[in-house]
Structure formats: structure tokens, C-alpha cells
């Protein structure tokens, strides 16, 4: 990569490698399929237009995560989001393997957005409490509180399907 801006090949590879992961991050913020696709498109547009060099693919992926979180935060602050289509109309797009997976998806999407974001970054992105606090620009204690509340809620909604940890 050595100091060059992203090439077409690197860009396509970054889209293929990250599109689902970033879409899920955006979805954890918006709970809305179309809004999440918008955010995703905007994130990759920023990558394509970014003029500074990346060290390697890992650097690109971390940059994309941070931009996706920031774009999602900006998006949900916009008054325009209040005019968009809710998730209930869109979740039939996904093909779940079984009803338990669908139950978990519905349960996470029913959490307050601040909690679903933290839960997603912890359980899917494997980020630590400290890393989540850094990327969301909130305190460690706030992350722990949101995680605790979200887990309690998921336990209530899912019963034995969700383990106490």
C-alpha cells in the first residue's frame, strides 16, 4: 500500500471485506435497513475520496469502523431520520437459519439504540469496554451500564436462549 491513496482494487476489496460488518454497525444505531445502506454508501464514498495513505488493510478496516460510527451518530442526530421507514417493514429481507436467530435479532432491535450499539460492538465486533468507550467517545462506566441494562433486557426477552455472563 506504501503511502498511496486506495486503488480501485483495494477499494473493491475493502467493500467486499467490510460491507456486511459496517452495515450491521449502522443498523445497530439506526434500526433501519435503508438508513443503514445510506450510511454504508457514504462511508465507502469517503474512503474512495480519502486522500491520505493507509498503512495496510487493517488500518483501512479500523478507519472504516470509526467513520461508520461517526456517520451513524451524525445520521441519527439529523431530524430527517424521523421521516424514514421503520425496521418492521424491512426485516423480512433477511433469511435467518432458525427462529432463535430471528428472536435474537428482534430482541436486539427492540433495545434502545444506545444499548443495541454497545451490545453489537461487544458481541459482534469483539471490542473491549475500553475500545467501545473510545470509539463512541463515552466513559467506560457508561459502556458498562449500557451493557448491563441491555443484557438484563435480552435475558428477559429471550429467557434461556441468552446465557447469564
Amino acid at each position: 500500500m506504501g503511502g498511496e491513496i486506495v486503488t480501485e482494487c483495494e477499494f473493491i476489496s475493502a467493500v467486499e471485506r467490510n460491507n456486511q460488518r459496517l452495515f450491521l454497525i449502522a443498523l445497530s444505531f439506526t434500526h433501519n435497513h435503508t438508513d443503514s445502506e445510506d450510511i454504508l454508501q457514504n462511508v465507502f464514498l469517503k474512503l474512495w475520496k480519502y486522500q491520505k495513505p493507509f498503512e495496510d488493510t487493517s488500518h483501512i478496516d479500523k478507519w472504516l469502523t470509526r467513520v461508520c460510527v461517526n456517520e451513524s451518530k451524525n445520521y441519527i442526530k439529523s431530524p430527517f431520520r424521523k421521516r424514514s421507514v421503520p425496521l418492521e417493514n424491512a426485516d423480512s429481507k433477511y433469511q435467518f437459519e432458525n427462529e432463535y436467530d430471528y428472536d435474537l435479532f428482534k430482541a436486539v432491535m427492540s433495545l434502545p439504540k444506545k444499548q443495541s450499539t454497545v451490545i453489537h460492538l461487544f458481541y459482534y465486533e469483539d471490542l473491549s469496554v475500553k475500545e467501545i468507550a473510545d470509539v463512541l467517545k463515552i466513559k467506560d462506566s457508561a459502556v458498562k451500564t449500557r451493557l448491563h441494562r441491555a443484557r438484563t433486557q435480552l435475558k428477559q426477552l429471550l429467557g434461556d436462549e441468552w446465557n447469564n455472563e
Partner: protein
Amino acid sequence: MNKEYYKNAFSKVCPSEEAIERMLCMTETRKKTFRHKGLIIVLAVIAALVCGTFTVNATTDGKLFGNIRVILNGEEVNPEEHNIKCKAYVDEEGRKIIVEETYNPDGTLQGGGLYSGFSESDIEKGMFKDVDKLLKGDVGSFKEDKNANVDVNITDITTADGARHISSCIIDNNESEE
């Protein structure tokens, strides 16, 4: 245990093929730029020749030229060709609102959106009410900002309620990109 359960469930949730296709097509924008280097130079010369016209713009309070660039699906477009109208408004504290409206060929309103730099707390305090009025043509306490320098990024998705998405809005080109 929960992590495996979570990852397995969410592995089936992904963006549409069409959305991925749109992202992969973004590479066309830079290609076009490089392919037409000569054309860009010619255009730059023409631009330099007509820059004096900006004086006229200033004397007409910005009415001659808008500084709002419209990017539709990743490509800068002429808003008029796509029946898109974008306007910037500013409130007394200098905060900006961008309103986008798209019209059908028969002149009827197809959809629109707005984008603001207001904080969530401002919106919660009721600012959203004022902002929403703008879509209905009620300017209220806002003033049109004819000299605004804005990039409006619109994705060509129309939601069920007829609204179009402004996926981002870079005001005065000062937005941080990390």
C-alpha cells in the same frame, strides 16, 4: 457462548445486492476525473475567464450562483437536470439547515429531505419543529443563506413516505473525516 449465538444470528443480516453494486460503482467517479484531464484543464481556463462574473454574483447577493454542490449516488450532478432544488438556511446563532426537494417532470413534488448541524439536544428542545416547518415552506426564524458552501450527498432511494435520503451534508467543507 452468547457471542457465537449473536454472530451466527447476525451473519444473515446484510445490505442488499443493489446497495453493494452502487458502492462498487463509485470507482467510476475517480476514473472519469482522470480520463478527462485535458477537458478539466480547458474547463479550468474557461472558469478563469468567467471568474469576473463572480463580481456580479456578489452584487446580486449570491443570486447568480449557488455554492451548493449536489452529489447523487456518488457523482456530482447538475441539480436542474435531475429536478433537484437545494437551499441552505441559517438561524440567528449561525447554525445551518439544508433542504432538498425533488420534483417530478410535471412539476409536482416527488420527495425531499433536510439535514442539519443541530445537536440532538437542540432537536429535543423543540428545534426540530421549526426545522420541519421549512419543508412546508415556512421559513420562520431562519434566513436563506445564498452564499453557503455545501456538498449535499443524496442517495437515490425513495422511502415509502416519499422522502429522499440525504446521506450526508458537508457544510463549508469543514467536516472532519478522521
